């Protein structure tokens, strides 16, 4: 229990809390802004009062979510400077530049175009208003792009060179950072999952309208738009998820092994469709990996290598230095024990550099820098005492990944079913169980979305920057008590915000369904 209350643990819990609260708002903003854009486009083409009312209703819900969610992410930046100061300095402009671009872009786009969206209905032309709505949607996604580029760099650090004088990783190839395959897949995966979330939200709220027999025509029209956006989103999410899996297999194979609870890999690997991990299993013992499992034959080999016979390394393989390269071939790489040795060599060199710098001995500094750079790729491993410290929490990674996949599969079926009903069997949309299913699916899509982030972030532990810096080295020299205090303050404030959002939104839904659309006359 002493370990759990360490400053590292509290800082990680705090970051997880704030990031997960932030992510409650973000995907809805990303997706519903697109849905509102489509609805307003239909209004622009048809010019009917009913589509105007539909657009305004969902725009209002977008506005509520935006207002409550805005600036919740800024707390993460506060935490970087206070709790994670070593990390903040170490990443330098690689992290700072994308966040600065995001901040500027978000401020200018959001303060101008959102104002036009909400204040400009009677003051600008319909075409200008429509453009502002779409620019808001595009701006939100571009904001997300820069954040996700920064996150992707932590998972796959490229395009930089370490400078021991500045003690920073300095970006030397902007495009390598921006166009990293991990960043591209992560961006589309996250943004398109926002489309799914918002589409399901629109469907669920519309189901409530139909259940209450209010604004049924509006609800059906909304389900059609939300359904198509959700379908496009889920198909795109599946496609980019496949790309992300291949990325993970190549650049974070330990994460993939943990996602599947795979301790000993091999060829023709099946994927776990459903399983219960054996809590007694560790990499060092011979116990069974699962108490119960259902496997899809060859599934993991196909997912990771796009080859049914492909080799997928397990946790023990990776610790012992067996991996797959960028072409998907099995290769022998440095074992984790060797990486720890190399990492410690880089630390010795940094120590020598520091001593030489204190004495102003430039020749010794250059010499130490050469040794440091030769061994820098495993710098982070030097902080580990055992190769098994590089294994992430298997159970949390495994279960969050499988919750995401199972719920994602359910969402695909649900969205397809809803679209089938709304177009082919509209009478069935009056069935209570279908309407309740639509409403119950709203929290499911949020759980699915959060589970994806838990997989991504817990699965890369113990690294804050893959291979270069473990979380324990990134932490500031602060007390656990300070972090505990702010953890609970955040928990209270964010819970109040969430309650406020839900309350305001429910009132707006109730009121809007009874007034705007019912009063709209074409």
């Amino acid at each position, binding site marked *: 229990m002493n370990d759990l209350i360490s400053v590292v643990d509290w800082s990680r819990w705090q970051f997880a809390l704030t990031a997960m609260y932030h992510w409650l708002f973000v995907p809805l903003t990303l997706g519903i802004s697109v849905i509102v854009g489509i609805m307003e486009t239909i209004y622009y083409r048809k010019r009917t009062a009913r589509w105007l009312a539909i657009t305004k209703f969902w725009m209002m819900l977008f506005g509520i979510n935006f207002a409550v969610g805005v600036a919740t992410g800024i707390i993460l930046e506060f935490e970087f400077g206070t709790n994670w100061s070593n990390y903040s300095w170490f990443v330098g402009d690689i992290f700072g530049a994308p966040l600065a671009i995001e901040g500027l872009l978000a401020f200018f786009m959001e303060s101008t175009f959102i*104002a036009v969206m909400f204040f400009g209905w009677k003051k600008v032309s319909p075409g200008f208003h429509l453009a502002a709505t779409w620019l808001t949607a595009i701006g939100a996604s571009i904001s997300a792009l820069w954040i996700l580029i920064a996150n992707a760099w932590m998972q796959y650090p490229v395009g930089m060179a370490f400078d021991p004088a500045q003690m920073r990783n300095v970006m030397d190839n902007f495009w390598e950072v921006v166009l990293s395959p991990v960043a591209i897949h992560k961006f589309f995966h996250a943004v398109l999952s926002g489309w799914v979330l918002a589409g399901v939200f629109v469907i669920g709220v519309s189901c409530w309208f139909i259940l209450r027999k209010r604004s049924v025509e509006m609800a059906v029209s909304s389900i059609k738009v939300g359904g198509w956006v959700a379908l496009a989103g889920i198909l795109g999410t599946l496609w980019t998820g496949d790309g992300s899996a291949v990325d993970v297999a190549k650049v974070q194979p330990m994460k993939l092994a943990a996602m599947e609870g795979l301790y000993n890999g091999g060829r023709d690997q099946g994927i776990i469709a459903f399983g219960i991990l054996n809590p007694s299993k560790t990499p060092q013992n011979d116990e069974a990996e699962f108490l119960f499992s259902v496997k899809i034959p060859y599934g993991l080999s196909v997912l990771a290598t796009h080859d049914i016979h492909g080799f997928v390394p397990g946790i023990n393989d990776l610790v012992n230095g067996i991996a797959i390269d960028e072409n998907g071939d099995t290769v022998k790489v440095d074992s984790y024990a060797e990486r720890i040795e190399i990492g410690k060599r880089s630390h010795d060199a940094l120590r020598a550099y520091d001593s030489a710098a204190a004495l102003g001995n430039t020749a010794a500094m250059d010499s130490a820098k050469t040794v440091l750079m030769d061994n820098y790729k495993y710098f982070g491993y030097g902080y580990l005492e055992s190769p098994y410290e590089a294994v992430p929490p298997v159970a949390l990674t495994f279960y969050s990944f499988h919750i995401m996949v199972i719920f994602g599969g359910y969402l695909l079926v649900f969205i397809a079913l809803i679209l089938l009903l709304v177009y082919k069997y509209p009478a069935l949309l009056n069935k209570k169980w279908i309407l309740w299913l639509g409403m119950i699916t709203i929290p499911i899509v949020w759980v699915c979305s959060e589970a994806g982030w838990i997989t991504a972030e817990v699965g890369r532990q113990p690294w804050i920057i893959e291979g270069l810096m473990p979380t324990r080295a990134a932490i500031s020299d602060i007390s656990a008590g300070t972090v505990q205090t702010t953890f609970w303050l955040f928990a209270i404030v964010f819970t109040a915000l969430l309650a406020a959002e839900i309350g305001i939104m429910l009132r707006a839904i109730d009121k809007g369904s009874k007034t705007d659309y019912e009063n709209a006359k074409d």
Partner: protein
Amino acid sequence: MSPDQPPLKRQNLPVRIFRFYLDGFRSMTVGRYLWALILAKLFILFFVFKLLFFPDLLKRDYDNDADRAAAVRRALVDRSANASYTGNISITYNTLF
């Protein structure tokens, strides 16, 4: 817009922008409550959390970038020498789950 004000198109751009926002805020319904919420939130974030609990430690404690770099270098070197610093997060979580 009040009847005694000139039409927007006859005013210069900054005034038009100002009045655009002013009229927008005045005509809000749900938005008034939301703006109160946003302002309260921003106050809590920037004037309570940021000022009282979240200083930028390196900026606060060191005068220039060279000193900050040296401080981070020493911190990272010290943690390498003392690997048990703050406990072992991986082992903690693996034990828990």
